[in-house]
């Protein structure tokens, strides 16, 4: 009869059972690494699938263009553009909402629906209610997130200010479109479902409200399979130029899609940066465990070879052991990862409004997680297995020669002379195998680094809020006008209750050109000595706009490959559409978007306009902010109002929701590594020094004293590792900053002492927990056995 398992395989399984404590520690670390990989790649696959299903089924457009006002007849010309499959014109507008329950103004994006039937492109999924009737001009379908935030249902009404006239819009349906998977509050960095919603209304109603009869101000296009997007964009720009086109753009810069894309990029960055740390640590641990096992089994190895087992058989026995060990971690990781991926996808579905989340089992993610973990395990086992292969049988059957210690060595004599013997033992032992000590230090440092490198995100967010809302955008409210206005609009704002000061601004859409580099964007013109909108250089010093020339955000300068002193072609996409050549006078450090700034008067002069504005920054009397909110809504020229205080509140609320969860998850993960490393190192130390410690116990050393000798080494290594981990963590944070930064926004690097302190605390507590577990084993040392046996 053929045995199911060879004797050697039985030995393998029994050895693993004996090493289960250490195996579990390694398994948890592998499971964390694989789990995070599966989570990131799995939720990425699910999001991608959910997105493409949504985009396909609801015909998300591929090219988008805004114009000031174009006649309907242009539609035929647009449809004729080679590569265009279908085109649809619309009316879109941002308006203010007057919601009684909100003390501050909210905004809505109005989007027209064809007068009959459903849109050709960017179709709606209607979850509740019906489509608006043409005959009733004040009906709308509203976006689901906004409806949920206010508990609106069909039949409710919302008051909106359309072109200066307050109207009660009746909600007839709740729906969503692929165009608004991700929305941001006006002036906000985060979705703000309470203060921003999308309203879809029949075209006729909007034509009337905005005096756009027979005209459109927005067009979206889908492409034929072989179309070249850029060619279509160029042709659309050419056709629409006379109508105030501000540049067509593809999905890559379509706001919602770009944000979804950048979130997905963060998942990819997470999958690339974090799991390798776990797998490297697991490789180190496997190396340590197997090295010790081979030392313990030295005589058995000699015996096996004497029986005729080949070196390869012996080596592969140990490699097999590492693989089996890692497989437990992999299975755990796959299970955890699958659950985490589901959870993450659902968390994302809170900000990414997909009608349904398609859960995808991403076999590539599973395969790469599994193979990466096994690869790490084999790598970790390699040197120990080779050592086993190289042992000569006759030599191996004798006990290993005693470890030789030397006086001095790595440690200075004056230091050793001042120490008590247990401390001296600790120091000599930890410096006797510097490579091993370094691996332990690395493992603990990796835990610390991972904590610092993930928890820094909160400092980073703080830094971002602090910079944007307390150092650069220090105005209390930002108002945009529906179209450019004269200075009297500003004067009018100044008369509103609670307004202390008003600073006009002018945003103008442009195309920047520097040789082959072209970017669609805008220039914000502000007052020369603006107090409300401040520009800062990389060192945080105030810049102010120069009388002539442009101040670019560093992001835009990078995208255009220009630096201070370079000249840039600026094609203005409004009014007479002049082409200007401007020099870059300064670079401003900004985290969001890619902006350009210049002096308000200079821009006016260059455009041939006098005292024209498109919005204003306001300083308010905090006691009268509510009165201002009420009053500003009735101003006909105001398209949107963003209050700094409500934007900051939303930010803090959102952060408070996530901060505890994220801190807990990261602490568990970082703590698992630290605990795993310390537990393993201490267990290995215990097998090596069990006899020594038992002898000391016989000589009258208390358990505590024996524990000090055993665990003092680990404590020393932990203390040594923490500052190293803090430095690595800072590097790690830099990597993550790089990985997560997109054209859309830059994550600032910031690391507070409290983050370092918290991380160190987690590492210390996890290490302490592991140490206590091992210390329990000192109780079980066999004191009688040591009297009798030779090691």
């Amino acid at each position, binding site marked *: 009869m053929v045995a199911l398992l060879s004797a050697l395989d039985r030995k393998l399984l029994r050895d693993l059972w004996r090493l289960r404590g250490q195996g579990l520690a390694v398994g948890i670390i592998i499971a964390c690494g694989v789990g995070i990989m599966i989570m990131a790649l799995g939720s990425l696959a699910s999001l991608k699938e959910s997105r493409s299903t949504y985009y396909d089924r609801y015909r998300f457009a591929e090219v988008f263009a805004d114009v000031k006002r174009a006649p309907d007849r242009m539609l035929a010309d647009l449809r004729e553009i080679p590569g265009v499959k279908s085109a649809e014109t619309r009316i879109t507008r941002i308006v203010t909402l007057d919601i009684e329950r909100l003390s501050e103004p909210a905004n809505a994006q109005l989007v027209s629906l064809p007068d009959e039937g459903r849109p050709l492109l960017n179709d709606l999924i209607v979850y509740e209610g019906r489509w608006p009737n043409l005959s009733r001009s004040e009906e709308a379908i509203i976006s689901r997130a906004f409806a949920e935030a206010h508990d609106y249902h069909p039949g409710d009404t919302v008051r909106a200010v359309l072109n200066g006239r307050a109207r009660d819009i009746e909600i007839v349906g709740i729906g969503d479109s692929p165009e608004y998977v991700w929305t941001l509050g006006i002036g906000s960095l985060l979705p703000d479902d309470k203060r921003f919603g999308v309203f879809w209304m029949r075209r006729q109603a909007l034509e009337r409200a905005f005096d756009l009869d027979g005209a459109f101000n927005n067009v979206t296009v889908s492409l034929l399979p072989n179309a070249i997007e850029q060619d279509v964009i160029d042709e659309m720009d050419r056709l629409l130029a006379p109508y105030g086109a501000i540049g067509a753009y593809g999905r890559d810069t379509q706001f919602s899609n770009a944000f979804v894309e950048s979130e997905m990029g963060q998942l990819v960055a997470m999958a690339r940066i974090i799991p390798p740390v776990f797998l490297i640590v697991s490789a180190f641990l496997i190396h340590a465990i197997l090295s010790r096992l081979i030392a313990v089994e030295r005589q058995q190895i000699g015996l096996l070879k004497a029986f005729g087992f080949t070196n390869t058989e012996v080596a592969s026995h140990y490699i097999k052991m590492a693989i089996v060990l890692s497989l437990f971690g992999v299975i755990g990781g796959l299970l955890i990862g699958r659950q985490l991926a589901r959870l993450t996808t659902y968390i994302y579905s809170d900000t990414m409004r997909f009608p349904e989340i398609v859960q995808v089992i991403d076999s590539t993610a599973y395969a790469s997680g599994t193979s990466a973990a096994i690869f790490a395990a084999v790598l970790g086992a390699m040197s120990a297995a080779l050592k086993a292969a190289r042992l000569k049988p006759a030599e191996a059957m004798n006990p290993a020669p005693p470890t030789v*210690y030397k006086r001095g060595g790595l440690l200075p004599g004056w230091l050793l002379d001042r120490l008590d*013997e247990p401390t*001296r033992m600790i120091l000599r032992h930890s410096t006797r195998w510097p490579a091993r000590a370094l691996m332990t230090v690395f493992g603990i440092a990796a835990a610390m680094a991972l904590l610092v490198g993930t928890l820094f995100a909160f400092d980073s967010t703080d830094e971002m809020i602090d910079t944007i809302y307390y150092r650069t955008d220090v105005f209390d409210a930002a108002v945009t006008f529906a179209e450019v206005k004269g200075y009297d609009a500003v004067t009018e704002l100044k008369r509103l209750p609670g307004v202390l000061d008003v600073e006009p601004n002018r945003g103008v859409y442009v195309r920047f050109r520097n040789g082959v580099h072209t970017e669609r964007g805008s220039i914000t013109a502000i007052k020369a000595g603006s107090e409300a909108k401040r520009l800062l250089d990389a060192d945080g010093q105030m810049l102010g706009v120069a009388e002539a020339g442009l101040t670019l955000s560093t992001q835009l300068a990078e995208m255009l490959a220009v630096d201070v002193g370079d000249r840039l072609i600026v094609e203005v996409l409004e009014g007479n559409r002049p082409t200007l050549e401007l020099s870059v006078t300064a670079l401003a450090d900004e985290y969001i978007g890619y902006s350009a700034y210049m002096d308000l008067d200079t821009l006016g002069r260059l455009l041939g306009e006098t005292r024209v504005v498109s919005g204003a920054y306001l300083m308010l009397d905090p006691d009268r902010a509510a009165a201002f909110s009420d009053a500003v809504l009735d101003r006909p020229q105001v398209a949107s109002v963003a209050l700094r205080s409500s934007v900051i509140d939303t930010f803090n609320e959102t952060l408070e929701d996530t901060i505890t969860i994220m801190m807990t998850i990261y602490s568990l993960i970082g703590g698992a590594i630290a605990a795993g490393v310390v537990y393993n190192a201490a267990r290995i130390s215990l097998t090596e020094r069990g006899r*020594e410690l038992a002898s000391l116990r016989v000589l009258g*050393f208390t358990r505590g004293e024996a524990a000090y000798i055993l665990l003092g080494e680990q404590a020393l290594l932990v203390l040594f590792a923490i500052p190293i981990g803090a430095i690595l963590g800072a590097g790690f944070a830099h990597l993550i900053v790089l990985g997560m930064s997109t054209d859309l926004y830059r994550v600032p690097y910031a690391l507070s002492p409290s983050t370092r302190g918290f991380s160190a605390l987690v590492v210390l507590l996890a290490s302490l927990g592991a140490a206590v577990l091992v210390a329990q084993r000192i109780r079980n040392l066999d004191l009688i056995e040591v*009297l009798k046996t030779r*090691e």
Partner: protein
Amino acid sequence: MSDTQALLRTNDADANTLLSVRGLTKVYQTGAVKVHALRGIDLTIKRGELIVMLGASGSGKSTLLNIIGGLDTPTTGTVTFMGEDITGLRPSGLTQFRRAHVGFIFQFYNLVPSLTARENVALVTEISKNPIAPEEALRMVGLGERIHHFPAQLSGGEQQRVAVARAIAKRPNLLLCDEPTGALDSRTGVQVLEALKTVNEELGATTLIITHNVGIAEMSDRVIRLSDGMISEEQAMNRRRKPSELSW
């Protein structure tokens, strides 16, 4: 010390009694089998005595030594050390007992490899109340020269003498030696026994040596033979011979 040795008949309360064992039994339960390692031992050990305990493997001598040394507890019976019953002590109490009163010498020396000879001795003197200086203890066992050597740099006999120095440096009342020469050849064994004799005489430490080696018996005050968990023979020696006169 020879004065105290002269007082032969004493009872438990006698100031010269270091240790008395009464009705000691030890039963190990291994699976379904009960092993009676000790079957009722009565023994009185006086201060300063040097006792050699002989017996075959399994006779119970190691079990007795472990219980006397506070490493193990009896099933029934008492061990009274300097008037105090140590059988009722909890593990921490036994640790303190060993720490304060007992010196152990192992068959395989059990030195700490990362500490030099002097440091191995200092390891124990650091936790003792009134120790002998490590250098002095090493000089007593004839190792004054090699105090800065690590165990791996010393011969077996030298290592065992370091172990003797380590055991006696805290001035133990009781020195327990389990096969101290078991791993040594006879020449180095004699050196170790010389060291034990010296410390017994100079420090007055009551010394209990267990061994297979009948030859060692002649250096003792008293020889106790154990067989099958009981004392089968007790013999007072009239003349202690020098270790150098012994042979095996």
